[in-house]
């Protein structure tokens, strides 16, 4: 509605003055996505929760920092080279390790969990006198340096005379042509289609699917959300958490499970593997997400027990696992105390 005396002089596309006019009401038929503020299955808006500091620290603690697994052998698609050896003093070793810390942080940076983006509906003008000027749409993009792709102006002139802002898909395609992101294809790869994703997941290639989704889509892209959710749910159903544990995708996965109230499998897994710290952190996360409270119990065992008695959904299985764990703990403590007595 507002006037825009926009003369894009130093941008590299054809400039045209936009005159004052009424914005016609034309429904943008580009994409019909049901973007609701609250996702079906989520208790809260994930974007709100994800960026909180305490949530971030909890997720980082859950992910852990296994250097061996984070820096695992990757298949680069290049010829293998023999390893290089160096003789280093202690100072040099520390220096190199510090460099690795930075790399580790970058590798474990979690892709955000957001809600689906709303489709773009803005129309700049309607010029019916231009109807039928050509068979196809014209797309214009501002390719000046110094703008991020999210803020870049991408505009479409339809054959019926409407000048509108480009839809998200058109936007991404144009930006990828002029400012290519490595690992991203212009057209959506066939891997992300229904049957093909399932094929990948059946072969346990979770990290690959998630990494490629990160490269291909933006975090609020509905396709990205559907792909990642499918992967997270599959991993949860088959309890294959170990393959994702040291990666940057573990945090978002845990948050997704907590938000969609499916965290009991994970808790069960942690109890079985005797990872009490992780189990406690998970319960703390649950409380933070559910009602922004941080639980007052200091003792981790008590914390977990309260959760199992209270808000847990799969009570019987969890209780059984918890009981067996407590027994093993008791026995271990007895043996330990006996050993202590014997040594004393």
């Amino acid at each position, binding site marked *: 509605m507002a006037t825009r005396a926009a003369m894009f002089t130093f941008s590299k596309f054809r400039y045209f003055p936009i005159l004052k006019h009424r914005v016609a009401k034309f429904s943008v038929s580009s994409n019909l996505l049901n973007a609701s503020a609250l996702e079906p299955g989520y208790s809260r808006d994930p974007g709100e929760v994800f960026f909180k500091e305490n949530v971030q620290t909890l997720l980082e603690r859950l992910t852990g920092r296994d250097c061996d697994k984070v820096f695992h052998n990757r298949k680069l698609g290049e010829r293998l080279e023999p*390893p290089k*050896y160096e*003789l280093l003093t202690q100072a040099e070793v520390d220096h190199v390790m510090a460099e690795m810390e930075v790399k580790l942080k970058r590798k474990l940076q979690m892709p955000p969990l957001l809600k689906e983006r709303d489709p773009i509906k803005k129309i700049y003008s309607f010029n019916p006198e231009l109807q039928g000027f050509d068979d196809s749409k014209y797309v214009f993009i501002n390719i000046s340096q110094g703008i991020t792709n999210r803020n870049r102006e991408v505009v479409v002139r339809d054959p019926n005379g409407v000048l509108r802002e480009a839809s998200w898909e058109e936007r991404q395609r144009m930006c990828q042509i002029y400012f290519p992101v490595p690992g991203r294809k212009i057209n959506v790869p066939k891997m992300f289609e229904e049957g093909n994703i399932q094929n990948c997941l059946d072969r346990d290639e979770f990290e690959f699917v998630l990494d490629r989704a990160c490269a291909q889509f933006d975090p609020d892209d509905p396709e990205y959300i559907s792909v990642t959710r499918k992967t997270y749910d599959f991993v949860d159903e088959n309890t294959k958490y170990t393959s994702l544990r040291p990666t940057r995708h573990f945090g978002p996965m845990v948050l997704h499970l907590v938000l969609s109230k499916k965290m009991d499998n994970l808790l069960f897994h942690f109890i079985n593997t005797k990872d009490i710290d992780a189990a406690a952190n998970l319960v703390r996360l649950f409380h933070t997400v559910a009602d922004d409270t941080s639980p007052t119990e200091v003792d981790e065992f008590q914390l977990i027990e309260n959760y199992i008695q209270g808000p847990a959904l799969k009570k019987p299985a969890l209780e059984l696992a918890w009981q067996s764990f407590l027994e093993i703990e008791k026995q271990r403590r007895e043996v330990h105390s006996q050993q202590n007595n014997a040594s004393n």
Partner: protein
Amino acid sequence: MAGLWNAAKCLVQLSPNFAYLKMSLRPIAVTMQSINHLSTVKMTTPLVSSTMFNPVVSPVRHTSFFTKLPADKLWKGVTSVSNAGKKRGRGRAVGKKTAKNLNRGQVIGVGKTNMLWPGLNSPIIQGKELIQQQKLPDDPEREAKLLKLRDEMGAFRLLRLSPLDRGWSGPKLPGRSVGRPDPVGEDDFEGFDTIVLEFKIVCNMKGNLGRTRRTSAFVVTGNGNGLAGFAIGKAQMGMTALRKAKNRAAQKLMYVERYNEHTVMHDFFTAFGKTRIFVQKKPEGYGLVCHRVIREICKAVGIKDIYAKVEGSTKNVQHVAKAFMVGLLQQKSFEKIAEETKLHVVEFRKERDYFPQIMAKPSEVKTVKSINDMDLNLYLNDGKVATKKKKYQVNESDPTWKNHLAKTERFRNHEQVRVNLLVDHGEVRSFLADRYPECRQIKFVKKREES
């Protein structure tokens, strides 16, 4: 007289040969025996006149050189080498004449005329009947078969080996496997395989014997898991030499340290005599890119990826093998290197994003590095560096190069485009294929032969 005439009449009936009839008119013994069994008599003296019956005049001797002497003397006459010649090894070449056993292919009782001799080549009684002597039908190919057999005898038959069993060159022994070493006590040498590296005939000149020939076999044996040994065996016969070498190698086994069971611990340099070898450690999948002798030794040891450059004498198989083994044994483990240099040994791999993996820590660490500690490879190669051939570097400002770039620019990216099209559409198609579906590549599919 009548009896005589009757006999003559009998003769006429029996033998239509008038020549013999004429003969019978001469005075012969007056007996009335049947003469069926008499075979026709071969006349040695010439007959009366040629106009009547065309005789073949051929002088025949019943005694000759062939019937006077035994078989071995006969053969000696043909294939003879004097005693002195034998000492010098004459007549032992590949094309020498060998005595052929003419009895091969023949059975007692079967000869030119195919007769049934009961008791010899058939039973006397069959069921309830006595078998009679009979003439069986002739075998026309018998002679031909015997001759064929005799032709094949004595000739050196070329060994046809399957490609998997072949060595380095045809049916010759070097490069071929000769099996496991012979068991010693309880030791079975399971998993061991020996390969011949060198198989040659060596001579030695002596005062009394003159030139004595022996075969020398150089062999390596190993179990593919770090244990290997090599040895030489010499004997008159090739097989004996091989066996000696194999068993001796099994006695001299050495343990070789490997990195991740697929390659050497580190790059190194070795020499034995004029043979110098530069060995480089290589990643998985590289293969054994080296001298064929080194390749066999690596297979025996269990090394799967290596690069080795042999300089100097490459033909001296024994020197190459010894140099390589010495180098393998002199390898230093990372702990040893750390202790010697008093520094951490750190490994960087591209696949791991150059994450520093500490392979060995010394007990005490230096704080200052000397010039020798800057490059580990130089330290391990004892200060020696192998000459590398310079790779051709393109001169970017060369006008011919620019011309080449301009020409190839139009299909520079075609390979990648093909791959992308196959990924996106499953086939190489043009952008018009949507509108005009007939504009597509027709892929030729070979018709499977119905067997």
